[in-house]
């Protein structure tokens, strides 16, 4: 199967701290790769390196067969990469539907359009409403984002990513801070992601990880400790000692 995302010996240092150490991985269409490891293992840093929030000190990022290491965040998004954030990162005062429209205008390269009203794009408006319906948020179309429950805001994060129609999706702890009651909706959204989408999931909820992932990569102190199927990872003595416990 062709690789959609490939990391080749990615390195990142912050001053004297070596945060990611020669991390390599491959992600193909349909993969569900979970990236796990203790706090400070370098998981979010790696996602930031992949998405282009900050540059890597060495190594390469390949996206859909193209070396995107030197490309900006925006260029990587246009090449099919989308991400969510560990801490909800939204426009708090925007109505929920406007938030989705932001993503749609970007996807359609319309955000430079200076004159047409945002209400004069009926097809995109309908698509935004469909996405809201899909994620169970249609009743909040005009509600300011900040007025929604935290779990619903996490859903908006996913809806925004899906509005971009990505090929590769990076999910940074989608369940973090979500109350139990809202978790089911997020799980359903995760299960309903398109099968041909390549997903890299960072998560501390091991039940979710072992249920959802087809492959697991364990990071410890910035380096890859193990890489394998959920069963292989569960049995790996190094992983049990460093992270999972007995």
């Amino acid at each position, binding site marked *: 199967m062709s690789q959609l995302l490939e990391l080749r010996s990615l390195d990142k240092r912050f001053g004297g701290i070596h945060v990611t150490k020669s991390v390599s991985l491959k992600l193909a269409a349909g993969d569900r790769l979970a990236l796990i490891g203790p706090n400070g293992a370098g998981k979010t840093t790696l996602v930031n390196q992949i998405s282009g929030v900050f540059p890597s000190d060495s190594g390469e990022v390949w996206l859909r067969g193209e070396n995107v290491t030197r490309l900006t965040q925006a260029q990587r998004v246009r090449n099919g990469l989308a991400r969510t954030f560990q801490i909800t990162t939204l426009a708090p005062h925007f109505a929920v539907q406007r938030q989705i429209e932001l993503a749609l205008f970007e996807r359609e390269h319309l955000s430079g359009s200076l004159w047409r009203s945002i*209400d004069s794009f009926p097809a995109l408006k309908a698509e935004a409403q469909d996405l809201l319906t*899909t994620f169970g948020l249609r009743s909040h179309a005009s509600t300011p984002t900040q007025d929604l429950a935290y779990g619903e805001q996490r859903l908006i994060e996913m809806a925004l990513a899906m509005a971009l129609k990505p090929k590769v999706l990076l999910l940074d702890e989608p369940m973090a801070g979500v109350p139990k009651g809202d978790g089911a909706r997020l799980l359903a959204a995760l299960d309903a992601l*398109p099968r041909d989408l390549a997903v890299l999931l960072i998560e501390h909820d091991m039940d979710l990880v072992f249920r959802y992932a087809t492959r697991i990569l364990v990071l410890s102190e910035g380096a890859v400790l193990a890489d394998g199927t959920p069963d292989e990872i569960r049995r790996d003595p190094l992983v049990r000692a460093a992270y999972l416990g007995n």
Partner: protein
Amino acid sequence: MNTVTLPKAKQQSDADMQKSPKCAPAWRAPLIALVLGTAACLFLPDQVGLLTRIFIIALLVLSLDLVVGVAGLATLGHAAMFGVGAYAAGIFALHVMPDPLVGLAVGVAAGTLLAGLSGAFLLRYQGFTFLMLTVAVAQIVLSLAHKARDWTGGDDGLSGYIMGPLFGKFEFDLEGKLAAYYALGVLVIFFYIARRLVDSPFGLAVRGIHENRARMAALGTPVYKRLWSMYAIAGAFAGAAGALSAQTTAVVGLDSLSFSLSAEVLVMLILGGVGRLSGALIGATVFLLLHHTASSINPYHWLFVVGGLLMLVVLAPPAKYFKRLLVHVGISK
């Protein structure tokens, strides 16, 4: 196809559906401004000088609102674009031709050019660094204007030009009536343009950057490019205001580039409400009327009134309390 389908149980019925958010018509607020402005000119013929000043400064504050309220960039150097537009229009009228509309275009171009050039550098920074650099740019421009006496007149100001007739027909009268209507017309047109801009996909993206820069970058927005474009557009607005000032007063002084003007327009914007565009017009009107009235009562301590009002607005925003009132009387939820 790359779409998500949640289980049917998660889908919502039509009854749950909420109306989609909708923009107010772009022409509505400018039309109100036009009606009120025209009425003021008609019913206060003795005050056309003050009204002209209000219209011009309102345009400058509108420009500032695009930068501060829409793009979320705090600046204290906005007078630079105003002054450059004023000097450009004045010099053009003196040395090239006195046509007001061509002069206005020259002012717009000068404001855009300065904002474009300085913005290309300034917008690489954020927060206090950006704020301080805007002050620095304005001070450099002021210093250059001071040095270039041959062109700007230095401390004496630029004068000696007479504007030609508007549209080649209407002469500027001594009473300043035409100047007032001309300034109002330009203000209303730029106000309409601003409304269109803010409610366009471009404006939505810039507002998104103001709300959350990291989110917009993650959506693929070229953040720097969008902010630069908005900054240059705001420069065009400020340049237009400067040109109007030069044309209607027939003099351009160094005070048009001063730090105090930059600070005053920021105060006006805060008084009227940041980020709503119409607040720029309200703020400029309230501030200049207060200035006019309070300074005629006490020319030394009129700023005391402005200071008090500013504290009141900051501590008890009128919009917030107006909304509470509407909720209280059951008009709004």
